[in-house]
């Protein structure tokens, strides 16, 4: 049994339409979702055959837009997870949903299927920003969606928001934050709009049609979010994440604490200890502590591979002790709780503390607000030269 694998990520790649900025694995429309969900169930069972009945503390159904597929299909998927693995009594089961495919009725089905945390892609409450981002809902729909899931019995609700949107000034960003806080979610994520290669937004920037927001304004809007949300009682527990007490996303904390997670579905990434990786059938290089692996992005190819008895894994990377340490520090620095660092990096840590970028407490460090703004640089200085 692999006791240290207690999380599972499931990817559902369907969306009403592809957003301008999105580089996740997704396709427009729900055509073929039935066949896909069949393959996904099959892969979950196959993982179960190879890893045994893992005790799962967290399950995260992400996308794409999981709320878009038929609620019955989702219920079926969760049932498969429950019958394949041992989902613990207090497990966190999150599902991502978009306002346009949320109704109180659908939410009740998800709730009954065992989803107990819902993450809503609100993004903005400003009409022009929503249009810029290519979102299909408006502010009223977004706020109604929050009410609907609450009405369906959800008590853990996250709202995703995006700042640094061209044309969205500080005042209107603050207004979005205030209105979302008023809607009363238990968790809020605030992401900077980033221009990823291969997205329509990237093409518009390249053609000179869009000028990305400069770093100074972006950092300022981040600061606005931190101030406003902390005052509203949301703890800033990760670079982009805020939660009421006890409402932190446990699944995501597994990522940031460099934990393990199995994964199923197109484009899904997993991280398994070496023995589990070997059991799954991944190549495990000598000396590897763990293996990170990922699925291919093609839906048709995924279906074929799973039907052929495979896991549709497209690539993997063995993680040696040095690399594991680098990743641990890199990820842990994102958390307000901070991260323990090795003795060899302590003098560097004190130098950074002297610059006001981190706080050092014994062998633990955490980024200050200033350090968080340049976290990549801070990380570079603290991961030292550990051999990968």
């Amino acid at each position, binding site marked *: 049994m692999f006791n240290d694998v207690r999380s599972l990520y499931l990817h559902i790649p369907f969306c009403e339409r592809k957003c301008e900025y999105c580089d996740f694995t997704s396709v427009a429309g729900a055509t073929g979702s039935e066949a896909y969900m069949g393959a996904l169930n099959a892969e979950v069972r196959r993982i179960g055959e190879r890893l045994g009945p893992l005790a799962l503390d967290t399950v995260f159904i992400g996308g794409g837009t999981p709320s878009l597929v038929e609620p019955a299909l989702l219920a079926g998927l969760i049932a498969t997870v429950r019958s394949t693995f041992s989902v613990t009594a207090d497990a966190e089961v999150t599902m991502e949903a978009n306002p346009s495919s949320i109704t109180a009725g659908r939410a009740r089905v998800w709730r009954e299927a065992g989803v107990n945390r819902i993450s809503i892609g609100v993004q903005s409450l400003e009409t022009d920003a929503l249009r810029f981002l290519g979102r299909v809902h408006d502010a009223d729909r977004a706020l109604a969606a929050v009410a609907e899931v609450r009405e369906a019995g959800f008590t853990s609700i996250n709202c995703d928001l995006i700042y640094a949107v061209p044309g969205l000034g500080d005042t209107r960003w603050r207004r979005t934050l205030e209105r979302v806080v008023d809607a009363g979610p238990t968790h809020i994520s605030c992401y900077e709009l980033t221009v990823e290669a291969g997205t329509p937004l990237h093409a518009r920037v390249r053609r000179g049609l869009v000028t990305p927001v400069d770093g100074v304004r972006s950092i300022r809007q981040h600061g606005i979010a931190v101030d406003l949300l902390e005052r509203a009682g949301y703890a800033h527990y990760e670079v982009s994440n805020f939660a009421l007490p006890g409402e932190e996303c446990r699944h995501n904390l597994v990522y*940031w604490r460099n934990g393990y997670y199995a994964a199923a579905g197109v484009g899904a990434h997993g991280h398994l200890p070496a023995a589990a990786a070997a059991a799954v059938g991944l190549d495990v290089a000598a000396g590897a502590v763990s293996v990170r692996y990922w699925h291919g992005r093609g839906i048709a190819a995924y279906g074929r591979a799973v039907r052929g008895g495979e896991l549709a894994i497209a690539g993997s990377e063995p993680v040696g002790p040095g690399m594991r340490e680098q990743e641990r520090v890199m990820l842990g620095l994102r958390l307000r709780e901070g991260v323990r660092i090795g003795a060899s990096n302590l003098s560097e840590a004190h130098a950074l503390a002297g610059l006001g970028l981190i706080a050092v407490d014994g062998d633990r460090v955490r980024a200050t607000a200033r350090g968080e703004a340049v976290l990549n640089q801070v*990380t570079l200085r603290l991961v030292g030269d550990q051999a990968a």
Partner: protein
Amino acid sequence: MRLDRIRNFSIIAHIDHGKSTLADRLLEATGTVALRDMQDQVLDQLDLERERGITIKAQAVRLAYTASDGITYELNLIDTPGHVDFAYEVSRSLAACEGALLVVDATQGVEAQTLANVYQAIENHLEVIPVINKIDLANADAELVRREIEEVIGIPADDAILTSARQGIGIDLVLEAIVKRVPPPQGERDGSLRALIFDAKYDAYRGVVVYVRIVDGRIAAGMRIRMMNNKSEFVVDEVGVFAPAMTRVDELLCGEVGYFIASIKNVRDSKVGDTVTDAAHPTTHPLPGYRAVTPMVYAGIFPVDSDDVTDLKEALQRLNLNDASLIFEPESSAALGFGFRCGFLGLLHMEIVQERLEREFDLSLITTAPTVEYRVRLRSGEVIAIDNPEMLPDASNIEAIEEPRTKATIIVPSAYVGAIMELCQERRGEFQQMDYQPGDRVALTYDLPLGEIIHDFYDQLKSRSRGYASLDYEITGFRAESLVKLDILVGGQRVDALSMIVHRDRANAHGRKLAERLRKLIPRQLFEVPIQAAIGGKIVARETVSAMRKDVLAKCYGGDITRKRKLLEKQREGKRRMKRVGNVEIPQEAFMAVLKMDEE
């Protein structure tokens, strides 16, 4: 071979005037290199030589040519470096010959460097045969170039040979002229051995291969020989000729050119210009003209990664085996750690050494701005030589600082004379002479500080004359000037490796420019970095690199981790090419910033 059937000759040409191509054609025409083995620049064996289209090391090759008189002659071609940095090597190569082909580009005319080398040939009593090359080009003007050779150089050019090395035109005429016009060598076949060393190279398997011209006597395997300069003695293992590959022969006789190998471990024992003699029957008269080569330009070379200092030392030693003119000694810098203070013949030599170290030995290096050697007269009466600004004594102890001066000759089309004179003025040059030459060109003579020439002067000369100006210079002596040390402070900390010696009148302007340039070269750090220029503790310029405001990834979830880590690794690779001084990361280029101050 009878003396009267030997011809030793060299080729003098400006860069790009076609020397290597002509040499290639001569090798082909005499069947020395089979056509199928032919590649461009056969004689330039270093990769760098081929890439840059220049000759760095001298080469020698023996050609067998059956002339129109039916007799087969032994022609020895000694190919010489063409750059001002290697002027002494050129002079020794010329001293090994009786004749020289003067190759002039029919579209370009005589250049300053050519002029200097041709005068050396004339001083060595060489028969100079003018060859006007590239006559196939549309803008060739052979008549004008012929007139220029006569008026500027002062040698008859009626019978200049017109060639196109690229097209193979006139090659036979060149070979005939070598036989007919270059005098055969003279010398005493039965006298005691006197051989002139004109180059040496280190071969990993055989030790040092010494390139010699036998002036008197003979040399053969088994002989015990003596280097007259340092009296070291060796037993000859092998003698041979270049055909063009090294080919063993029984002996090399008076008048001939070839090589010998004698278990010599270090090229320092076979210095260019030295005389080799028979240890059993030594001559009392060494050949004239030997001088120890002294560096003109000094710079510090440091490994970016301090752990590589041992590797750097080994690499320098290895290069040194082949290049006795490179000198180095350990240096330690507060900013850069341990490295080596190196002396070079000139800037090109410095660039070549740096490039070879990085390329052939896979080292990542920081080279500090080059400097010349100053003479410092102390109040105590003592005179010291300073090749590193850092070593300059406290100003209160200094009576005077003297800088090396040169006589610089610049040949330039008259349209650019104004621009070039302006450049010379900016560089504290003192005008001496201006001569008009055929083809609407002007020869300018200036007294210029060597320290100014090594700072980007050549590039400026080229850019302000659209590439038409050519330069030659020779050291004339030292002169006291009002010189001061300019210090640079980065993040409040003095960076010794950025200090330089400058003229007081221009020190402020220099400091401002340098600080400004450094501001552009030093990337934003996690905090604000002031860059200051100071003279004797007084700040004369200040610039600020503002702090980095933002560098953070908004999202980092399960699928982002591998990509994110790779991104960090890439960033770290970039940092490896920087040197951390105090808390500030300074890129390699910054240390050379002072070289490029006239840009932009």
